[in-house]
Every structure is written in C-alpha cells, then in structure tokens.
C-alpha cells in the first residue's frame, strides 16, 4: 500500500496508460493479423477497427485519469518530471526513427525482390502503426524506469 501511495501522479498515469495501451494494442494487432489471414484487411475494416479501439482507449484513459486525479491532486511538473519526460521522449524518438527507417528500407529493398509488404498499403500502414506503438511503449516503460531507478 505504501509503495502505491508513494507513486507520483505521473507514475500512476504512465502505469495506467501502459497497461491500457498494451492490451488494446495487442488486441488491435491480433485482429489485424486475423483480418490479413482471412484476406479481409481492407481500408474500411481497418478504419472501423482502429476507430473503435481508439475511442475505447480514450474513454479508458480519461476515466482512469479522472480517478487518479480525484485520489491524488495532480502536481505541477518540476525539473525532475521534465528531465524524465525529455530523456524518455528522446530515446523513444530514436526508436521511432529506427523503426520507420527500417520499414522504408524494407519497402525500398523488398520492392526489388517482390516483398509482400510493398504490395499492400494496409501492411505498410500497420507497420507504421506498430512503430508508433513500439515507440510509445518504450517511452512509457522508460518513464517508469527513470522515476523508480533514477536518472
């Protein structure tokens, strides 16, 4: 109980966001995989799936943040909060950049060898969504690590 109460608003926010994003992200990519296997990965089905899950994620996160704000008054960011956000954001930005360059390289090089990724804009879109998802997860995990283990 003491360990939980010693968490700052930012840490509680990061934990809740990470858990919600993780489960919804896994559900999304699992559904995309199933649609692709069934040959149903079209813009309409993907847009519908993404819209429903984004709305669900927003509702969950708004509700969660209202609850933690009622339990613990949000504080104004101090220098440590800003430093944690800056370092986590820096590294996640690097992860996003590497992932995007990897996808673009795969498209360019794979295009020469007839890669499946190049033949499907839906796969390219989902690969980019996966890159953003990965970078966001990295940012949230690093935020928690920096708060708990120090900078």
């Amino acid at each position: 109980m003491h360990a939980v109460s010693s968490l700052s608003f930012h840490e509680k926010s990061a934990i809740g966001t990470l858990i919600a994003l993780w489960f919804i992200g896994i559900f999304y990519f699992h559904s995309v995989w199933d649609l692709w296997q069934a040959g149903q990965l079209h813009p309409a089905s993907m847009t519908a799936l993404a819209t429903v899950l984004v709305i669900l994620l927003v509702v969950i996160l708004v509700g969660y943040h209202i609850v933690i704000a009622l339990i613990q008054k949000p504080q104004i960011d101090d220098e440590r909060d800003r430093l944690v956000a800056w370092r986590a954001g820096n590294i996640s930005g690097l992860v996003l950049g590497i992932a995007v360059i990897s996808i673009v390289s795969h498209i360019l090089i794979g295009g020469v060898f007839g890669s499946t990724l190049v033949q499907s804009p839906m796969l390219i879109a989902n690969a980019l969504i996966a890159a953003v998802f990965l970078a966001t997860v990295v940012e949230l995990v690093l935020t928690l690590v920096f708060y708990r283990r120090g900078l």
Partner: protein
Amino acid sequence: MGGSNLDNRVRALRDASEHMTQQALADAVGVSRQTIIAIEQGRYSPSLEVALKIAQAFGEPIERVFWFSYS
C-alpha cells in the same frame, strides 16, 4: 579516475529539524514530494538552483548539504 556521485545529507538535516516533513521541504523548494524522496535516496541529483534552495531551507551552506563522493 573514478566516477563521482552527488551525495547529500538532506534526510539527516530534515530528521534533525522538528517540523520539516518531505512535503514541507518540497513546498519550500518548489518541487514535488517524490523529487525530495528521490534526492534523499540518491536517485536524483538536483539542479544547482534546487540544491541551493534546499541548503537555504536548512540555513546551511550548500557544501554542507551536497558534496561529491568519488568511487
């Protein structure tokens, strides 16, 4: 040449003063209570501005509150 860490005796000074809770010190310095906890536990080295404000809150010169320890 070994690395250096910033050590402090914020916890000892706070324990020695009667009414200085972590929250009171945080309010005096303008940071969160969690940041004071992190400083006391050596998980965060504060900026010069915050270190000076902490020393000022205890009425001590900064070098008696924060110092380098070499490993």
